[in-house]
């Protein structure tokens, strides 16, 4: 597995905090969408690794 580094320091957290405080509904709506996309990618990758095709969804 590759070594990965993700910059997620104080400046990033300060920026996220500012976004939450400015417009919390938009921040969390975007976060929910991204979280579901990320979860779907991980799930597809895991199923693919196990040789199972993801179920087609409407």
């Amino acid at each position, binding site marked *: 597995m590759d070594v990965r580094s993700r910059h997620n320091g104080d400046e990033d*957290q*300060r920026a*996220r905090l500012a976004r939450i405080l400015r417009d*919390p509904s938009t921040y*969390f709506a975007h976060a*929910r969408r991204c979280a579901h996309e*990320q979860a779907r990618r*991980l*799930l597809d990758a895991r199923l693919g690794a196990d040789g199972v095709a993801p*179920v087609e969804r409407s």
Partner: protein
Amino acid sequence: MSAISERVGRLAAPVAVTAATAAWLIGVVVNDLSGWSFGLTAAGGAVLTALAVGLPLLSAHRAAVRAATAEQIAEDAAARMQLVLDDALEPLAYLLGRVTDRAPGHRDRELGELQGQAKAVVLAAAAEVLAADRLRSCYFALDEGPPRQLVPAGFHGRAQAPGTTFVAGTPLGDYALGLLRRREDLFCPDVHAAPPPGWTPGGHAYRTFLAVPVATEAREFGILTIDGLGVGDLTDADVPAVRVFARLLAVALNA
């Protein structure tokens, strides 16, 4: 799954139907059946073909539905975990660090602003990371009085500010203050079916709510509530996350 096995899977049903039908048709032709024997064989063949092919197809369909449901549950759980940890708790933990970075015992305007920000983040996160839409979170701050009471001090979500004040000496006020004193949480699945003690029916848009204490071991600050418009919008499983947000708010307010 490889393209070949996927194609084989798609062709399985028509091949099975064709093979089963061909079996009894060949029997009809080879035996030169006619009249009632032909009719009986054809009807029996059709029924048996339907059973032989239909039952496995039905079973496969049910398995596919279960698999899709399981995938959706797995996706929702993973997304929720990321939302709570990455998008809500991490910025809140950073903010708590800024609160505790202030000099101990030194109260100033910036500390008050940071605590206000912590309250806003907790209110937003508690309402937004749970599964249902149109939830509302409310913070009721403890006012030592007298009389001792819990007063509305902020909300997030549906555009309807909380209007209840929980005053000591009233059944509902004593009940709410008791929850805070005992550090207990409350989940009410349906306020119509089983309201809390002292509950006044009418005047509430919501049907379900939960309440958790905002307190450290030594100090009480208030209660945090989440309410939803429909029965089922909140579940027991939502309580732990809200308790964590309430505990972290207490840490911020305790600085």
